[in-house]
């Protein structure tokens, strides 16, 4: 009877055969992925699509976001000082591209228009072979692109979008939002409103008449009524209206003592100074000083509103003057590159690109379902917002929300907002089910 006597040669042969046998399914699976998803970059370029408004009402915010994206690509490819790759924890990216290969990008102009945003995203996917699309300054743009990307099996990392619907009733498996939302603004700002203005107030809402405005109004109304405030009226104003005077005159004799402006972008830039011109802030109502609140702030809009913004309370996703390591690193990188501090629009664009690239690196593949799984439930720190989690059930990032106030004594033209407080991640966390929606399947469509 022959007795098996292993020697070094047979041991090596056996081990090699074993490894090959174990590895075979993986190779086949990986090969199968390569054939089954849209714009597989395995044998081609790695192209990211940055689709932002470069013209139209929100062009300035879009161009800021684009700067953030371009800086992110530089850092991913190992150029510059590395930015937030030095502070992100945990981090898989090594500063040598994604999966060892350099990343390229194409840009598009959404024209601050939902249809143009959707068309631009489609062009990036079909013509430019983008593996990921990102960018938005309105929720309309974000929701339209997110929906398209789900249909085409391409991951969409939204830019600036604040409507509850983006990760609520319109959420998609292929869409991810780093930016905070209207519900979180309401929860974050409420305690500060109670502290500053008391719990016996009568609020009058002027609301931009579209998806973001509606969810913002609902969220702030719920949050302030929970404080004990009474809502006197909720008035919808047309999006993009220039002169708000006919909506401001009824406020004067409405019995309200707080005006809440659910406006963003140009709407806020116009409505806030006009409200101040009407003397609302010098006014007394119900024995109290009349106050104005802008629940959602952006630095660029604060600059646009000029002096009217001084002393006004609102919320923000991020602010360059924070003193954590991530913020300092990003402000330094961005300041050196562009000669000015970054806006929250640039920050969220930058972070989204880094998070996508890092997820691909961790997944070891561009296959969207694996990248999605790498992002879902991902917990990280060092990106300027403290400890953050990408919730798996709705793809909303949960992190601290900043409460800011227009700076009364700015030290420079960039110093427009002061951070007056932070609401913790736990406080702004909610049940995903309250906003409804279905994420949809993991399996990608072929484009």
């Amino acid at each position: 009877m022959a007795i098996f006597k292993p020697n070094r040669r047979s041991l090596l042969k056996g081990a090699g055969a074993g490894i090959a046998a174990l590895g075979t399914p993986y190779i086949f699976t990986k090969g199968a992925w390569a054939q089954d998803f849209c714009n597989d970059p395995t044998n081609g370029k790695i192209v990211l699509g940055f689709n932002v408004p470069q013209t139209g009402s929100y062009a300035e915010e879009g161009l800021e976001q684009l700067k953030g994206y371009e800086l992110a690509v530089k850092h991913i490819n190992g150029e510059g000082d590395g930015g937030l790759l030095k502070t992100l924890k945990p981090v898989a990216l090594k500063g040598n591209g994604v999966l060892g290969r350099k990343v390229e990008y194409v840009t598009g102009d959404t024209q601050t228009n939902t249809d143009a945003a959707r068309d631009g995203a489609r062009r990036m996917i079909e013509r430019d072979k983008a593996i990921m699309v990102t960018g938005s300054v309105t929720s309309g743009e974000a929701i339209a692109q997110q929906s398209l990307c789900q249909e085409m099996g391409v991951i969409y990392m939204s830019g600036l979008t604040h409507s509850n619907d983006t990760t609520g009733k319109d959420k998609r498996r292929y869409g991810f939002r780093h930016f905070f939302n209207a519900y979180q603004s309401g929860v974050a700002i409420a305690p500060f409103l109670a502290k500053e203005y008391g719990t016996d107030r009568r609020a009058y809402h002027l609301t931009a008449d579209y998806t973001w405005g509606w969810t913002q109004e609902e969220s702030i109304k719920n949050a302030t009524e929970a404080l004990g405030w009474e809502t006197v009226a909720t008035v919808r104003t047309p999006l993009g209206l220039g002169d708000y005077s006919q909506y401001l005159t009824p406020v004067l004799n409405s019995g309200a003592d707080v005006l809440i402006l659910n406006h963003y972008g140009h709407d806020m830039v116009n409505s806030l100074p006009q409200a101040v011109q009407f003397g609302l802030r010098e006014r007394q109502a119900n024995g109290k000083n009349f106050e104005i609140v802008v629940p959602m702030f952006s630095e660029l809009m604060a600059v646009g509103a000029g002096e009217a913004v001084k002393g006004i309370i609102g919320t923000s996703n991020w602010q360059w003057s924070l003193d954590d390591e991530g913020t300092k690193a990003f402000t330094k990188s961005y300041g050196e590159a562009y000669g000015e501090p970054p806006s929250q629009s640039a920050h969220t664009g930058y972070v989204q690109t880094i998070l996508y690239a890092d997820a691909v690196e961790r997944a070891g593949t561009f296959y969207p379902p694996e990248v999605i799984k790498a992002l879902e439930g991902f917990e990280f720190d060092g990106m300027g917002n403290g400890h953050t989690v990408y919730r798996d059930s709705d793809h909303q990032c949960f992190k601290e929300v900043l409460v800011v106030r227009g700076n009364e004594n700015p030290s420079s033209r960039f110093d427009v907002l002061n951070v007056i407080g932070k609401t913790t991640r736990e406080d702004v966390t909610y049940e995903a089910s309250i906003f409804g929606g279905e994420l949809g399947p993991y399996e990608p469509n072929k484009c």
Partner: protein
Amino acid sequence: MNVFLAQLLNGLDKGGAYALIALGLTLVFGTLGVVNFAHGALFMLGCFCAVTFRYLITLETVTVDPEKLSPWGAPVEVRTPLVQNWFGDFGAVLVDYSVPISILLAIPVMLIIGIAMERGIIKHFYKRTHAEQILVTFGLAIVLQEIVKSFFGANPVPQPIPTDLRGAADIGVWFGMAPHVLTYPWWRLLYLLFSALVIGGVFAFLQFTTFGMVVRAGMADRETVGLMGIDIDRRFTIVFGLAAVVAGVAGVMYTPLLAPNYHLGMDFLVLSFVVVVVGGMGSLPGAVAAGFLLGILQSFASMTEVKSLIPGIDQVIIYLVAVVILLVRPRGLMGRRGIMES
């Protein structure tokens, strides 16, 4: 009652702006027969005359302070306004009143722009169809707004109200009401007064000067005036320049109310055409009356009580009135017989 008065005042204030823009538009149509879709762009250029003036008057010397560093490690820039360095307190007043003072810049600039536009482009389209005139002037409007965007960016550029004119006037007290019952911003009251003065000035110019008499004669019968040996074309060119000046100064004074951006002209274009159509194409009193009428209607339609009765009425009232006028009286409220009628 005070709510009614506040909305009325608001309507008059809005109507003043509409009337000023429509006045120039209908002046050009009445004299040259040109449908000028670039008229809104002239209003926008007027706004940017104020922006440019403020930019020039707030030019600063920039020095670097090596002691202080920005968050990204670069030395901080220290900026000092030149005008205040040169003229002291008077310089500060110039900066504070930059918007009204910029009218002095806007008048010659808009006159030159208007004349150049008419001589360079519009005159070649006098005998073309209205459709071709609309196409070329619309194209011109787009070119102008893109030029402005390339210089000033896409974001609005807010212009401040002079310190003494900020805040609201307690109008109610003037009429014996309790304090703070009826208030209205000083600058908006000033704009209403300004509109009335400019409209009155244009009418007086056309009514009481020889130049105006020739222009009115030309509007009535261009050919006959030409046959009398009067160079009516030259006068009409100046009228085009005058229309540009009216639109421009209307824009200058509007900048503290609405932060100007490159797209502002397009926002006002449709509205001003509706005003002209309702008032009657080519009718100057019609344009003014329609401007104030539509301003007041828009203001009242925005009241919560009205909106609760007819939701969305605030957004369609102007167009609803235009439709009714076009159906019932196609020539407009004060239009001449035959204009816009088959």
